C-alpha cells in the first residue's frame, strides 16, 4: 500500500470530520479564487478602458482626472464646456465643410485649417450633462461607432446587436436618432424604434420631452463604459432645451421652433416645399435647423494623435490656452489605479492570505485533534516496521489530501460562482466575465536568476496549498513522529 492510500483510509475513517475540514478549505479557496478574479476584473475594467482608441482628451481646464472620469467612465459631474470652435481646431477646412453639408447647415465652413488638424488621426466631440435613467446621455458624432477602434491592439470596433448606427441626419428621424449601450438596453428593455427622452443635468432633472430620440441601434456588449450610456446625435443634443449657449448679438440666428416656417436651404439647397413634396416625413424632421455653431459647446474632445511623438507637443500647446486643457487618459487612469485601486487590491490580497491561513488552521486543528485517537494506530504501524519518518509522511499526506481536495473543489466552485455571477457583474460593471477566466497574472521576479515569471495567480494556488498543507500538517506529524510506541501499544485502542 502506498502512504497516500494509508492517509486516505484514515481520512475515510473520519468521514464527517474530514469532509467538514475539506469543506472549510473549499470555502476558503472559493473565496480566494473569487476575490482574485474580482481583483482581476477591477484591474481589467480599468486597463481595458485605458486604451479606448484615443490618447488625448481635450476639455475645460480643471482636474485632469475629473475630465477623464467624465469622458471615459461617465462618472462624476461634468465640468465646464469648451467652445465649439476650439473643437474645430482639430478639423480641416474640408472636414468642416463636409460636416456642415452633412447636417444641412447654411453656415460657412472654416476659413482656415484648424491648428491641430494635422496632428490628429481623429477627434470626436462629446457633450455630456443629461441622463437617461441612471445612465449618461452622450451627444456625439456617428464617427464614434463607424471606423473607430476602441481597442486598436485587438482591432475591436463597436458592433450592434440590433439595428444600426445613428445618422447625422435622416429623412425619417431628422437629427433625433440614438443608440443604446447594451447594459442600458437590457436594464430598460429598450427596443428598436422606441422613443427615449433625457433628463436635464441630473437623473431626477427636468424631462426633455420636447425632443424624443428614436432608438435605431443597440450596441453589442463591449466591456467598456459605453455599454452604460445612450448615444444621441450631437445635432439633436444641441437642439434640446437649455443646450444652446445664449448669445448677446441680436442678429445671431438661434434655433427654435418658430423658425420651422423658414426654408431649409442649407447645404442641400432644397426649399421646404421641395422637401415636403419629396418626403412628407422630412417636414417633421426639418422643423429644426441645426444649432448655430457659435451657440455650441463641447464637454470633451477625444483625440487620437497621428503618432505618439506629437502628443506632448499637442498637450503643451493646448495647455497654453487658459480655456482648454489636454489630459492623457492612460496616465490618469494608471495613477488612479495606483492611488485607489492598488491599495484596495492589496487589501483583497491580504484577505485572501488570511482566508488561506484560517483554512489551514482548520486542517491543523482537525488533524491535531484526531492525533490522540490515532496514537494507537500510529504505534501499530511503528510496531509493523514503519519508521518515524514514515508515520510523519502519512500525516503530512493526510494534510495534503485534505488541503488539495478541498482546494480543487474550492477552485472549481470559485470559477462556478464567477460564472453564475457573470451576468450580474457585466450588468453592474460592463466587464464581460466567464467562468473560464483566469485570475490576474502574478509577476514573480527571481533576482538571482534574473528571470521574471508571469503566470495567473491561481496557478500558484495549488503549490501554495501543498506548502500550506505541509506547514499546518507539520505539527500533528511531529506528534506522530514523537509517539512512544510501547506506551501507545499498551493503551486501549
Amino acid at each position, binding site marked *: 500500500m502506498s502512504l497516500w492510500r494509508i492517509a486516505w483510509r484514515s481520512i*475515510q*475513517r473520519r468521514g464527517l470530520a474530514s469532509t467538514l475540514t475539506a469543506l472549510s478549505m473549499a470555502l476558503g479557496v472559493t473565496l480566494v479564487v473569487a476575490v482574485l478574479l474580482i481583483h482581476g476584473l477591477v484591474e481589467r475594467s480599468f486597463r481595458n478602458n485605458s486604451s479606448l482608441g484615443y490618447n488625448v482628451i481635450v476639455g475645460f481646464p480643471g482636474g485632469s482626472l475629473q475630465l477623464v472620469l467624465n469622458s471615459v467612465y461617465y462618472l462624476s459631474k461634468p465640468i465646464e464646456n469648451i467652445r465649439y470652435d476650439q473643437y474645430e481646431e482639430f478639423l480641416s477646412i474640408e472636414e468642416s465643410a463636409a460636416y456642415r453639408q452633412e447636417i444641412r447647415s447654411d453656415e460657412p465652413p472654416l476659413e482656415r485649417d484648424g491648428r491641430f488638424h494635422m496632428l490628429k488621426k481623429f477627434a470626436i466631440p462629446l457633450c455630456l450633462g443629461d441622463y437617461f435613467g441612471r445612465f449618461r446621455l452622450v451627444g456625439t458624432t456617428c464617427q464614434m461607432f463607424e471606423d473607430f477602434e476602441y481597442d486598436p491592439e485587438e482591432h475591436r470596433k463597436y458592433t450592434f446587436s440590433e439595428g444600426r448606427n445613428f445618422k447625422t441626419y435622416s429623412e425619417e428621424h431628422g437629427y433625433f436618432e440614438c443608440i443604446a449601450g447594451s447594459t442600458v438596453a437590457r436594464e430598460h428593455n429598450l427596443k428598436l424604434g422606441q422613443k427615449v427622452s433625457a433628463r436635464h443635468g441630473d437623473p431626477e432633472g427636468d424631462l426633455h420631452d420636447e425632443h424624443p430620440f428614436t432608438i435605431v441601434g443597440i450596441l453589442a456588449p463591449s466591456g467598456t463604459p459605453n455599454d452604460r450610456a445612450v448615444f444621441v446625435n450631437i445635432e439633436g443634443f444641441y437642439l434640446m432645451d437649455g443646450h444652446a449657449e445664449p448669445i448677446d448679438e441680436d442678429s445671431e440666428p438661434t434655433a427654435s421652433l418658430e423658425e420651422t416656417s423658414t426654408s431649409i436651404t442649407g447645404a442641400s439647397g432644397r426649399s421646404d416645399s421641395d422637401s415636403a413634396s419629396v418626403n412628407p416625413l422630412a417636414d417633421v424632421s426639418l422643423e429644426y435647423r441645426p444649432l448655430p455653431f457659435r451657440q455650441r459647446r463641447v464637454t470633451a474632445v477625444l483625440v487620437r494623435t497621428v503618432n505618439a511623438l506629437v502628443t506632448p507637443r499637442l498637450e503643451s500647446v493646448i495647455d497654453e490656452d487658459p480655456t482648454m486643457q489636454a489630459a492623457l487618459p492612460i496616465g490618469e487612469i494608471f495613477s488612479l489605479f495606483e492611488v485607489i485601486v492598488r491599495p484596495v487590491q492589496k487589501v483583497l490580497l491580504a484577505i485572501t492570505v488570511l482566508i488561506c491561513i484560517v483554512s489551514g488552521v482548520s486542517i491543523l486543528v482537525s488533524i491535531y485533534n484526531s492525533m490522540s485517537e490515532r496514537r494507537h494506530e500510529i504505534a501499530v504501524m511503528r*510496531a*509493523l516496521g514503519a*519508521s518515524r519518518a514514515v508515520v510523519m509522511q502519512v500525516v503530512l499526506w493526510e494534510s495534503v489530501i485534505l488541503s488539495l481536495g478541498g482546494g480543487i473543489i474550492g477552485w472549481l466552485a470559485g470559477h462556478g460562482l464567477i460564472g453564475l455571477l457573470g451576468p450580474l457583474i457585466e450588468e453592474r460593471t460592463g466587464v464581460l466575465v466567464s467562468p473560464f477566466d483566469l485570475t490576474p497574472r502574478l509577476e514573480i521576479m527571481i533576482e538571482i536568476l534574473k528571470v521574471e515569471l508571469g503566470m495567473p495567480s491561481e496557478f500558484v494556488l495549488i503549490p501554495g496549498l501543498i506548502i500550506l498543507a505541509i506547514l499546518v500538517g507539520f505539527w500533528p506529524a511531529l506528534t506522530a513522529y514523537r509517539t512512544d510506541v*510501547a506506551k501507545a*501499544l499498551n493503551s486501549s*485502542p
Partner: protein
Amino acid sequence: MLNLKDVKKQYIEPNGEILTILDIADFQVATGEQMVLLGRSGCGKTTLLYVIAGISRADAGKVMIDNLDIQRLSESGRDRYRAEKIGYVFQTFNLLPGFSALENVMLGMTFARQRKNAQHAKRLLTRVGLGHRMTHKPTAMSVGEQQRVAVARALANRPKLLLADEPTANVDPGNQKQIVELIRETCSEENVTLVMVTHAMEVASQFSRTVRLEEINRATAETQQGDLSSNDNTVTGVP
C-alpha cells in the same frame, strides 16, 4: 537464532524509584524452534517481546538475532529490522479499523523494503481460512477472524521470528486451540521461529518447550509475589 545476554530493562517510577522489569542473564531460541514463555501478569512478558522486537531498547546487554545485535542498531535500523525480520501478533490484534482484511495484511508489507505482493497476502489470508473475507473490515469480523488476519499480517513479510503476545487471550476457549495450531502450522510452513507468551497452561501444553519467565528473569524472581496455580492453569492475579 535468538540469543539474549545480560539484558536489563528498567523504568523510573513517578516517585523516582528505579524498577527493574527485565534482568535476563541468558535466553536462547534455536532457528525454527517453537516455544512458549509462561508468566503471570506484570512479570515482563510484553516488555521482553518489545525488547526482542526492537520496539523498546534494553538498558544493558545484548539482543542477538541471527548474530545481529539489535542493541547496536539505530532507531531507524531497528524499524527496518522489525519490518523485515519480525512478525508480531498482538493480544488485542491491533488491526487498523479503516482497512480491509487484505489491506491490513498488505500494510505490514508497506514498511518493508521487499516488493509489495498482493498475491502473497491473499494466499496468507486463504491459508488462515479467510479467503472469502478479504474485503471485509475488522469491525465486520468475529474476534477469531480478526486474530487470523493478525496472524496473516504478522507473516506477510516472511519474518525470521514471530512474536505472539497472548494471542488467545481475547479469543473464546473453543477458538484458542485452533488459533495456536494455526500459528504453529503456518510458522512451520513458512519456516519461522516462534516465541509465544501466555499465561494459560492449556496453551503452553501445546508446545514442546515451555519456559517460565520467572525462571530466566531475575527481576521477576526477586519481586515474585505469586506463583503459577496448578488448579486453574493460570498465573494468579492475571486479569
